[in-house]
């Protein structure tokens, strides 16, 4: 009966006797006692492979004092989980969008970057999307022409496509309809379509949508577009010569930021843009004279669109030339001082609440840091009481959309959500790109079919002053406070 030593994992069991008259299974049972590895899982290395239960000891030539090696695990066997993980590669394309974190790009169909970037910016307005979804496919109201109807449907379908796809989308249908509605976008130059002004495209599309989305049934809020983008202006028209003064009101879809030598910041440009001179016939003087028009904002939109007036018609070169001047714009814009007195009064209460809430948040944070973990629980719940009473954080309410529209208040504070930039020297050349903030807070640069993630601090660097992309249209979203 030879004695061998058995090595199992890191341990060595010396002097294990082998009863060569018995089958190797007996030996395995011996080892089971020592190691706790069940015999069927034991793998013992001997000459010519693994020791089988029915092997013949005599043929294996086991020598006295030989070292044997045993492999086997006493632990439980690893089992596959019943439900395997879901892999991104297996998901249908729509669901991959969620994983990617941004919507698709748009293919350039030949100098259509102006259109692509416009659509990407508008696409980032969820309220517009939901309004479009409700738009009926067939039932067009009588006062709407066929091409406007088709353009609206095409817009809806394009937004749908963008949401569904990960891969870039080719906006063929939309473009055809757009050209039909606005033939100026179909201009050809040397046999290819010309580059166009994105601002014109933006304005025209919004105009069409405002026509189409004027719902006939509900009488009250009839114009969704106006509600979302419309800015009410009240202007005092004053004539220095005659002393005449009159009040006018109007609704515009965007504020203009005029760029002159003094303008270094968006705010200054806006102020500039709200003052204008016009020449018209004065009824009292009997001849035409200069009137000063001084506008103030009287009604705020949910989405504030600001156009940088970067292009002017240069007669000598017969094209829209560009002002390259650097005009800074903030990520957070407060237009309180551009508002009319009426509006200011209305804004005061919500603004106070906004300030309070900000202060509370900061204060709460301080408190959390200072207090020890034991009593912080109590204080936390204390602090939560009023905050839930007054409402959730502004971000949460923002997501609720149109439904909760009635009980939120505008504050005059706006956050930047989309920037449409232009790169190049004239409006009809160069390249347009959209930079859009996604719902998860990340910025994506939509360069036609290529969405590129960007950092927030790089967005403010698009303020011009070089040949880099510079902001042409900025879209701000209102920060609201629930009442």
């Amino acid at each position, binding site marked *: 009966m030879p004695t061998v030593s058995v090595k199992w994992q890191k341990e060595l069991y010396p002097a294990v006797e082998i009863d060569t008259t018995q089958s190797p299974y007996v030996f395995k049972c011996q080892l089971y006692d020592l190691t706790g590895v069940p015999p069927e899982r034991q793998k013992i290395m001997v000459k010519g*492979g693994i020791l089988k239960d029915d092997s013949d000891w005599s043929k294996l030539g086991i020598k006295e004092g030989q070292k044997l090696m045993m492999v086997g695990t006493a632990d439980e066997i*690893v*089992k596959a989980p019943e439900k395997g*993980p879901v892999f*991104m*590669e*297996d998901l249908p394309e729509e669901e991959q969008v969620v994983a*990617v*974190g941004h919507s698709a790009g748009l293919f350039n169909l030949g100098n259509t970057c102006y259109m692509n970037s416009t659509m990407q910016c508008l696409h980032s307005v969820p309220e517009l999307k939901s309004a479009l979804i409700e738009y009926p496919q067939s039932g067009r109201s009588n006062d709407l022409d066929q091409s406007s109807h088709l353009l609206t449907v095409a817009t809806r379908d394009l937004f749908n496509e963008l949401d569904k796809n990960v891969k870039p989308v080719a906006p063929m249908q939309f473009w055809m309809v757009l050209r039909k509605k606005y033939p100026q976008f179909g201009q050809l130059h040397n046999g290819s379509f010309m580059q166009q002004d994105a601002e014109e495209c933006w304005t025209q599309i919004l105009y069409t949508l405002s026509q189409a989305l004027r719902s006939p049934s509900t009488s009250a809020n009839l114009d969704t577009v106006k509600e979302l983008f419309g800015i009410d202006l009240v202007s005092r028209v004053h004539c220095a010569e005659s002393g005449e003064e009159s009040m006018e009101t109007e609704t515009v879809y965007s504020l203009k930021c005029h760029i002159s030598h003094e303008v270094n910041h968006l705010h200054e440009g806006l102020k500039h843009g709200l003052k204008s001179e016009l020449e018209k016939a004065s009824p009292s003087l009997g001849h035409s004279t200069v009137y000063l028009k001084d506008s103030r904002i009287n009604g705020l939109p949910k989405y504030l669109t600001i156009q940088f007036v970067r292009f002017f018609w240069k007669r000598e070169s017969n094209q829209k030339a560009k002002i390259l001047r650097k005009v800074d714009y903030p990520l957070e814009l407060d237009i309180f001082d551009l508002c009319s007195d009426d509006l200011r009064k209305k804004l005061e209460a919500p603004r106070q609440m906004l300030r309070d809430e900000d202060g509370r948040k900061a204060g709460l944070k301080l408190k959390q840091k200072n207090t020890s973990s034991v009593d912080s629980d109590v204080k936390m719940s204390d602090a939560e009481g009023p905050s839930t009473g007054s409402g959730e954080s502004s971000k949460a309410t923002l997501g609720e959309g149109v439904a909760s529209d009635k009980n939120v208040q505008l504050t005059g504070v706006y956050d930047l959500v989309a920037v449409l930039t232009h790169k190049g020297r004239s409006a009809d050349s160069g390249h347009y790109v959209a930079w859009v903030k996604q719902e998860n807070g990340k910025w994506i640069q939509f360069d036609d079919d290529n969405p590129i993630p960007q950092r927030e601090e790089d967005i403010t660097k698009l303020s011009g002053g070089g040949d880099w992309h510079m902001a042409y249209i900025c879209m701000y979203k209102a920060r609201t406070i629930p009442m």
Partner: protein
Amino acid sequence: MDPEPNNKTASGTGNPKDESTLKAPSKDPKKKDDKKEEDLSEEDLALKHQLELYVERAQDADPGLQKVALESMRQEIRTSTSSMTSVPKPLKFLRPHYGTLKSYYETMADSDLKKLLSDILSVLALTMSAEGDRESLKYRLLGSEGDIGSWGHEYVRNLAGEIAQEYSKRVNEEASVDDLIELVEQIVAFHMKHNAEPEAVDLLMEVEFLDLLVKHVDKTNYKRTCLYLTSSARYLPGPDDMSVLDIAYTIYKQFEEYPSALQIALYLDNMQHVKQVFTSCPDLLRKKQFCYILARQGLSFELDEEMCADDEDREALQEIINNTKLSEGYLTLARDIEVMEPKSPEDIYKAHLLDGRASAGASVDSARQNLAATFVNAFVNAGFGQDKLMTVTSEASSGGSSNWLFKNKDHGKASAAASLGMIDLWDVDTGLAQLDKYFHSNDNHVMAGALLGVGIVNCGIKNDCDPALALLADYLDKEDSSIRIGAITGLGLAYAGTQNEQIRDKLTPILGDPKAPLDVIAFTAIALGLVYVGSCNEEVAQAIIFALMDRSESDLGEPLTRLLPLGLGLLYLGKQDNVEATAEVSKTFNEKIRKYCDMTLLSCAYAGTGNVLKVQHFLGQCAQHFEKGETFQGPAVLGIAMVAMAEELGLDMAIRSLEHLLQYGEQNIRKTVPLALGLLCISNPKVHVMDTLSRLSHDADSEVAMAAVLSLGLIGAGTNNARIAGMLRNLSSYYYKEASLLFCVRIAQGFVHMGKGLLTLAPYHSERFLLSPTALAGLVVLLHACLDMKAIILGKYHYVMYFVVLAMQPRMLLTVNENLKPLSVPVRVGQAVDVVGQAGRPKTITGFQTHSTPVLLAAGDRAELATEKYVPLSPILEGFVILKENPDYREEA
């Protein structure tokens, strides 16, 4: 004062420039001399007249007077030729009379005097004789055969050059060379005595009589001699290099410099020599050091009683060769450097350094990204036995959803299971215990991975119980092909280079099995190629050749078919001409694979030889342009790298040639160039190569970019190179949307941080002298798989990545004491300096820092002991080195 350019450089080779400057004075000596005479100082003038007088007297009829004149002339020359900063005056003044003396010599009757004059003429010919006349030699042979050194160094050198020329002429004419050899012997003796070993070796190589060297080396000069011999061997053609190394071996052995002798024996791949080293060295401790050297080379070597009589000692020695303590040493190093803490893939990606660009929405697992993480985790924690993905879950309640293994999809699970083998690399006991759990899995992919893991964990380690063979053999004939591939590949990795006949008997039948799918056959060929790497084994070659011939036309177009010729090529790795018979057979293959096979065989056979002709051959193949992408240019480009990687000069030239290929080559060449660069600079991040690859990693062609990204990983493998790490991090955000490229970036990141920076993939070791064939084979398999990235690595055969395990070695110096326990001593580590042929005792390292062992060695680093207290038993401080106490050491007060 001497307007003539001095011609002290008129040595052996004598270039045409010397000739022209020499001839000028002899054309019109009179005029020149007249002019000069006015410039000469009084002393010189006197000497000149004196010499003129001697010349005149030498032609005197009176033998007595003649003798006196000649003797004095000789005296003058000898006293002045000892130094040769400018043409010695006596020689200069005698120049005009060279012709006269020569003609007089012809008229003289044979006598001692004639011989005397002959000696003088021989010396004068040093500056006077026209190129190619070899008059110095002629008169020397006619002369008195006195002490050759008495005429000065320059004379001897010139003579040596002339002998070389004369020798080749005589050999062509098949004339006798005995008189020359006699002279050579004198010259060699002179050189060897005067620290001019390179000259002596050069001369002997010219006259093909190196054996003579052995007689003349002594204790003081054998090291320099051998160093010159071994370094020059790299640049010698054909069988010459072998004979040169043979001499070096003999000399080393003669002076009991056994470790060096052993290294040469390994270079020559001469097992007889290896055996001789063991038998001729009586010291057990030194034998242990030999075993460490053998283990690093990855050689399977059985000691017999002749080499070590005592059974117990022999067992201890064999244990070292079997690499059983490698894991222990590696962990000692890791503990010393304090990198035991496991790292997760996120620690490597360092996504927090990339603001804004980190991919959003990590809510859904990506199978490809998880697979990448599996590989990164395996490479980074290789050999440490612990990680944060695979080993932790097994300790906690197993089978939970947190188990990383099951976060991989299908074949990804194979790589995940196999990664356990990588994590427990070299630690067979723990590794097998970990892997055993997965042997009971009912998932075929998991099984396959566990089998492969057994191979990985045993890679380079030999165990008497042969656990890998015992465990894997049963699975070779399973139905499922992924299990079969797992077992086959596992055997290939575990027994690489062992030439184990059992494996051959088990694997060759698979090649002939008509029912076996192509992938099984392909991996069988590779496994056999690895086991019999560089063996030129006929039987295995036959089996693979038949398998290739049996393939159907459609099979030959499959991406995996390329592994069959590669398996064949590995059999002849570095064996040069031995491949010819097989290469001849390969010409009969189907034309679809013929050229591919030819290139693969040639590149493998000449791998690591530095053979310039072969490099040119491959370049020639790459110069052809084809309409449709021909596949054979891939192995041709790799071939350039494989052949040229042998030595630094050729390597730099190859890098430059590859740049040209990048510019002028078609896409199929461009996509291979990064891989070739990766092989040339493996684990050696040269800055300009890094820049080239960085440029290519943004290439418009995705295949070029992928290869470049992977190669960035290869050149930085195991270095933790911060620059490459930064590049890869930026690439990861640049390619965040492109899953395949991102996968490559991740793998490359895993490579760079391989073993947390303690490992190297370089197949060259021992100061870049020795090439480990198994290591090179592993790299070549990986690179060939990369030739079709989409089908193999990005497809379902990603586990070919584990073939790098063959090349993985700790890049350490671990000093151990006489009981083989780690011993910390101070060492200087610095950039290695080439000291071949330099005078004196130059420093071998520069810019060094002092550390205490164990230390890491980067590419091109060399270490030396900073203490006199110990004596290393190996002249090359790499890997495991045994230190012996210095008996002469005295503690400084």
